[in-house]
């Protein structure tokens, strides 16, 4: 377990302020944030390289706030690996290893056989990251901190290594905290996602929840939500309204959200007034004509851009001057014969709208 309780740290002119979160024992936490948000500073504080000015750090229930790095039972893997250049690959992995058997095991898992006798200066960036991960894991720490460990790997190796790390994590049961700026990595690996910005935790929770319900428009944008709209929420009144103005058991009520010339129908625990609405592109469907359906938001528009990306295709539809992005399967795009300039209907459910 890695637990931070109101941690404040100063590193030069940069400050981490009032950081609190917990990654449960054997859990996998992912810290997401833009460059300069304090991600590496956070890891170095947990590792004991930087001293907090206040607050507490607990590793596996033990208060290590003032303990030196070597007695914290955790490892750190930097983005730039920091392999010891005066040692061979094998000697690097052996550096803090518990036993030769563990070195052999971890070297096999990371497929380091070919590299072992090479000088670290001859390795590529991706190979360095693999060796750095192997070196940290060979110590069998109680917790491990990864700073963008897969960033220099090619896509295929990255997927393989994610699986390897996840397998070792499951088998050995260490607690992991990984820094990334790639939210898809958080979804693939993390049990807990912590969003950091300008030295503060701005949101934390399960990756799925953070992804679906970003706390601020900035987080929504950072997490790759294409459809973020500024507008005004207004209560839905009168017998003629299509949605009843009553709170449900979760405190949500039917509202209208007005942005530019569009009005969305939504459910939310939000007060009347200005706010932002987020609709993930995956929640938007496209059809060639209006249909009778439970989707309360259906808008006619014209396709302005089609970007195929593997199995998914992102289609931008201009609706009266407001662009809405839909992520649909490439197969659907083909079947609908979508092309730039075509008229289509973009639709999404009232529940697909998240206010922040």
């Amino acid at each position, binding site marked *: 377990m890695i637990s931070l309780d109101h941690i404040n740290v100063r590193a030069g002119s940069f400050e981490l302020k009032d950081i609190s979160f917990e990654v449960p024992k054997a859990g996998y936490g992912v810290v997401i944030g833009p460059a300069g948000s304090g991600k590496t500073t956070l890891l*170095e504080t947990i*590792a*004991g*390289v930087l001293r907090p000015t206040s607050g507490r750090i607990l590793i596996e229930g033990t208060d290590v706030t003032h303990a*030196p*790095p*070597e007695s*914290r039972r*955790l*490892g*750190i893997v*930097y983005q*730039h690996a*920091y392999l*010891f*250049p*005066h040692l061979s690959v094998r000697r690097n992995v052996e*550096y*803090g290893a518990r036993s030769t058997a563990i070195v052999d095991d971890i070297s096999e898992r990371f497929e380091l056989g070919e590299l072992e006798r090479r000088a670290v200066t001859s390795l590529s960036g991706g190979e360095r990251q693999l060796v750095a991960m192997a*070196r*940290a894991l060979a*110590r069998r*720490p109680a917790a491990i901190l990864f700073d963008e460990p897969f960033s220099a790997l090619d896509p295929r190796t990255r997927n393989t290594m994610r699986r390897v790390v996840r397998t070792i994590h499951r088998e050995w049961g260490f607690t992991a905290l990984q820094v990334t700026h790639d939210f898809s990595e958080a979804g693939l690996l993390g049990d807990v996602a912590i969003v950091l910005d300008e030295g503060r935790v701005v949101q934390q929770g399960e990756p799925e929840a953070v992804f679906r319900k970003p706390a601020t428009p900035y987080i929504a944008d950072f997490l790759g939500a294409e459809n973020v709209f500024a507008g005004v929420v207004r209560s839905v009144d009168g017998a003629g309204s299509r949605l009843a103005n009553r709170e449900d058991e979760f405190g949500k009520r039917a509202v209208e959200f007005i942005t530019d010339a569009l009005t969305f129908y939504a459910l939310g625990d939000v007060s009347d007034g200005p706010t932002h609405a987020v609709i993930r592109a995956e929640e938007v469907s496209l059809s060639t004509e209006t249909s009778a359906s439970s989707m309360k938001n259906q808008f006619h528009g014209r396709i302005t851009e089609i970007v195929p990306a593997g199995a998914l295709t992102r289609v931008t539809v201009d609706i009266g001057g407001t662009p809405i992005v839909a992520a649909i399967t490439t197969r659907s795009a083909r079947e609908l014969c979508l092309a730039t300039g075509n008229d289509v209907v973009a639709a999404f459910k009232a529940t697909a709208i998240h206010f922040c």
Partner: protein
Amino acid sequence: MIRAIATVLVAIASSLFLLFIVGPIIGLVSAGGGRGIAGLASDAELRSALLLTIVTATTATVLGIIGATPLAYLLARRAFRGRAVVSALMDLPLVIPHPVAGIALLLVLGRGSPVGRMLYDAGVRVAGSATGIICAMLFVSAPLYVSAAREAFARVDARYESVARTLGDDAWQAFRRVTLPLSAKGLTAAAVVMWARAVSEFGAIVILTYNPKTASVLSYDRFTSYGLSEALPVAAVLVLFALIPLAALRALRAGEPIRG
């Protein structure tokens, strides 16, 4: 056209400067080198002065390494209150005239001072002894070592130590197993520079210890007592002698990339 003229001007200026530095040295070696080398066999005073110079410079360098390495490391790695002041103090011996440094040392370590008297009572004579030569050499050359060693440590990213610490090393082990090997080349170069500077020292030594004579004092002594022709062989031998650390330094830096 302008570029070609600029290139020619730069080449002329560089050649003149090089000639200004190398000319006197070539003149000195060609005039006295042969006699100086021959004198190594026949001139007992010259041999003795050279041996004394080597022993005292080496001792001063070893003392400098022992005393100044931790300070250089602290200056490179730790942000402590007064770091700028300590850095400035370490540079001070480099900017004051060396005879002034000798006078300062004499004031503190001579028999007239409390420290000097205490040392004398303990059987350690500073002024007029090899100990005085070592003190003078240490005072004027150690700051060069601190500066170069600090640079050598600063070139090793502190994160190597952080990684070593998380792999179980305490601070000393991380220094010994990681920082020291990675900065070894720079530290050796720093020691060579210090040694070379100690060998060539004259101003501070001549105030603190005229006798026994180091090679630099001997060349001055022969110049003032017997004239230029007698001083030439000693001076030429000193120049040839200085080539040894310079060659070592070049060899150490041979693998370094040219920055730009």
